[in-house]
């Protein structure tokens, strides 16, 4: 398996590099100018030229590419155009932990909720509860997340004001002490994590239900019941463990989806995470930041897929890598 992982990692290097090169050229071909902000009445036309000069945009495209390549090979992704010329690595270092927090909490909530709903639906197949949960899951699965987020804000921050509508912390949260600060942060994360996880959980619930229904019809389940094991043990130990095999692989592949979901969640809830950095970088034509973000998301997708494959082999002994 180690050889397999090593091979996959080796292939990942040119793949990610290819994605970055493509991104480099595509964003430069797209209409729009990083110095466009400085083209407005009252600002000398020299400013846009001087800014382009500073950004190195006046050079020929192949020269820009070679310079960029040399810098990236030395681990330097350059400085952001739109964020006060901060090194893009610093911008990402500030934003990534926020997105990772949301992603990990969402992942946990996704799977916990999804598995519970899926198991109950399968065990009580065709009951009212099953139908109710199936319809509910489909309802949430097909709901646009940005709209759902706004509805949650209107409901739980405006009509019934129990959760904050935006931001990571309350005004003056630094004075609450470490525990109070953490609880305040958690309080601010309830709505966004709920929005992101309900949609994902609905999908996972469908997987779990299907998988469970398949497993509980197997002979070994009948055997378990026949030898007098309580239903709870039959379901939780014998059925669920086997039913979760295909679901576990979802964990790796759902990471990129959660990151892409964070794009609008962070804009709506005003979190300064990777999603907002990416959206703002695209609108500002901040080339270095767009490329660095592509690097992060590309790497996540490649590693997410690798993780899914490896997890599959780890949990299912029939799969050999």
């Amino acid at each position, binding site marked *: 398996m180690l050889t397999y992982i090593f091979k996959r990692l080796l292939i990942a290097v040119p793949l990610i590099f290819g994605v970055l090169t493509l991104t480099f050229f595509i964003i430069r071909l797209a209409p729009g100018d990083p110095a466009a902000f400085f083209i407005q009445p009252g600002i000398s036309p020299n400013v846009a030229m001087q800014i382009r000069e500073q950004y190195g945009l006046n050079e020929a495209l192949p020269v820009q590419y070679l310079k960029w390549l040399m810098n990236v090979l030395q681990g330097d992704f350059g400085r952001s155009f739109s964020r006060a010329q901060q090194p893009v690595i610093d911008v990402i270092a500030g934003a990534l932990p926020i997105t990772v927090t949301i992603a990990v909490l969402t992942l946990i909530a996704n799977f916990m909720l999804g598995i519970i709903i899926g198991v109950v639906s399968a065990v009580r197949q065709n009951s009212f509860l099953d139908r109710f949960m199936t319809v509910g899951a489909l309802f949430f699965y097909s709901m646009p997340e940005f709209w759902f987020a706004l509805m949650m804000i209107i409901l739980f921050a405006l009509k019934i004001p129990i959760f904050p509508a935006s931001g990571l912390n309350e005004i*003056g949260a630094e004075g609450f002490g470490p525990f109070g600060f953490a609880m305040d942060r958690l309080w601010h994360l309830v709505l966004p994590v709920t929005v992101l996880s309900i949609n994902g959980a609905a999908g996972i619930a469908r997987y779990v239900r299907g998988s469970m229904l398949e497993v509980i019809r197997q002979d070994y389940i009948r055997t378990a019941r026949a030898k007098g094991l309580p239903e709870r043990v039959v379901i939780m130990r014998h059925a669920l463990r086997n039913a979760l095999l295909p679901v576990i692989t979802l964990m790796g592949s759902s990471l990129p989806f959660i990151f892409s979901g964070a794009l609008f969640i962070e804009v709506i809830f005003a979190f300064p995470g990777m999603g907002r950095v990416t959206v703002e970088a695209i609108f500002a034509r901040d080339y270095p930041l767009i490329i660095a973000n592509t690097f992060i998301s590309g790497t996540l997708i490649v590693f997410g897929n690798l993780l899914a494959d490896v997890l599959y082999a780890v949990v299912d002994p029939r799969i050999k890598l």
Partner: protein
Amino acid sequence: MMNELRGRLFSEGCRVSLRLAAFCFLLLSVTGCGGGRGGASGPSAMDSTLVITSLGDADYLNPVIGATVTSSNIFGLIYPSLLQSSFDTTTGLLNYEALEKRLRKATGASKKPEAALARSWTFSPDHRTLTYRIRSDAFWDDGMPIVAEDFRFSYMLYGNPIIASPRQQYLAELVGAENGAVDFQRAITAPDDTTLVFRFHKPVPEYLALFHTSLTPLPAHYWKDVEPEEFRQSSLNQNPLGAGPYRLKSWKQQQELVLESSARCNLPKPGNIPMISFRVVPDYTVRLAQLQTGAVDVVENIKPQDFEGLQRAAAPVEIKTVGLRVYDYVGWSNIDRDEYRKSGRIQPHPLFGSAKVRRALTMAIDRQSIMDGYLKEYGELCSSDISPSLKWAYNNTIVPYAFNARKASDMLREEGWVPGPDGILQKAGRKFSFSLYTNAGNERRNYASVIIQQNLRAVGILCRLEVQESNVFFENLQSRRLDAWMAGWSIGLEIDPMDVWGSDLETSRFNFTGYRNPDLDHLCMLAKKKMDPLEAKPYWLEYQELLHRDQPVTFLYWIRETQGFNGRIQGEELNISGVFYNIDDWTLRPSATLAP
């Protein structure tokens, strides 16, 4: 057996839950550690904090390079200014004020301009030399005195092409600028700590000389070791040293920037409200919800359809407006843009080349309906780009073209546009059909464009609506790739329209329509030559008549921008020159006893 199993499951569940909780706590702590330098504020922090929401974060807290509106709002509170400016609502003129001198006599009751660093000024009779006397009792936050050399040093930064200041245009009249680079040795001198002299290469009206020489200074002793190449990247940009009523307390980028009242400020005094928090909230619905719950105090640009909801809000909200500075328009390409791009030759546009056709288009559009449906009482019909708020120059004799579809049809027929078999107007085999472009994400323009499309269809004109991403739209506009578009302008308080209407299409960067009228150029030139703006009034009146006659664009409506204020704010005076014009004088009702 069952109980044992349950017990085991429970204890396993507990262990997992505990691990999960510990993990979550760790994650929260990791993300929480990146916080700012904010100290303990206590649970009642909101009582002494004014919370202002903004769409985006500040870029630089540095007046030389800060370019966003949020940056300007913030560094305006941190840094001192040479002069104070005030907008006279009875005349529409900007006034410049030093401690002991004013450009114009104040018309109403006015306070002594104690925030100004200049004690007074003298302007030479030839309008080429401006000498300031600076007060000697002003200090930077670190205790160092503010001296004339600080201004000289700062102007050299503003003029340095490596730094690329967006305010370098202000130096265009200084000696040397006529040859491409300001000669700082001669243009700005500081003979002693309290005397500052500016020299111009041509006679300059006094108001313009004051406007262009009152750029915000930086402390020379603090910035002197920063190389121009490092200026934009310097860490000093995150730790500004100012002398204004507020100073930076903490800055969590893209989240929140907190200013605290600066106790030692005497320009004019420490801010009344102990803390001001600028919170970044990109989404409009969320900003609005927070204003309604009282989580934030000020939200700018409230949409008229939300006023009713705000009146029912849990927190008392007041809607306030400033003067008319923004207008929407429909731009018509006056010239054949393809021909101009290919050969540089200027020919009238086949659809919009005639002023009579453009006038007919304006009459065909029911501007009043757009205002009634969207802006309501927060809009005003627009006839030119001189705002009714600039009363001294506004031509109130011009009657806006009324909506009259029949007259519009007649005028189009007189120009040779007659209905074809499909009902669409035709002339020499060409249909009157075009695409109207606008930028994405502007609800007001989307609303207006649908009405415009219906209005034009009623007179036999086929108009397709196209929405483009803002960057793409602006680039297409700049390179004159659009035949018709809908956009808006935010005007300056000084009238300077040559960039927008100048006949030289190479130098008039914002003349997207390709409008050319030598008479209008001449009027602008005559007006700019006058040393007293009031003497230029007749030229500006005629200028507006020309624009009204030629209709290079269809001016739609002026927009009265609306701001939502929490009722606990007191003492605010909104002004066309800015929403936060006198923010250091504001107070918060519950915190009145806390204010210093």
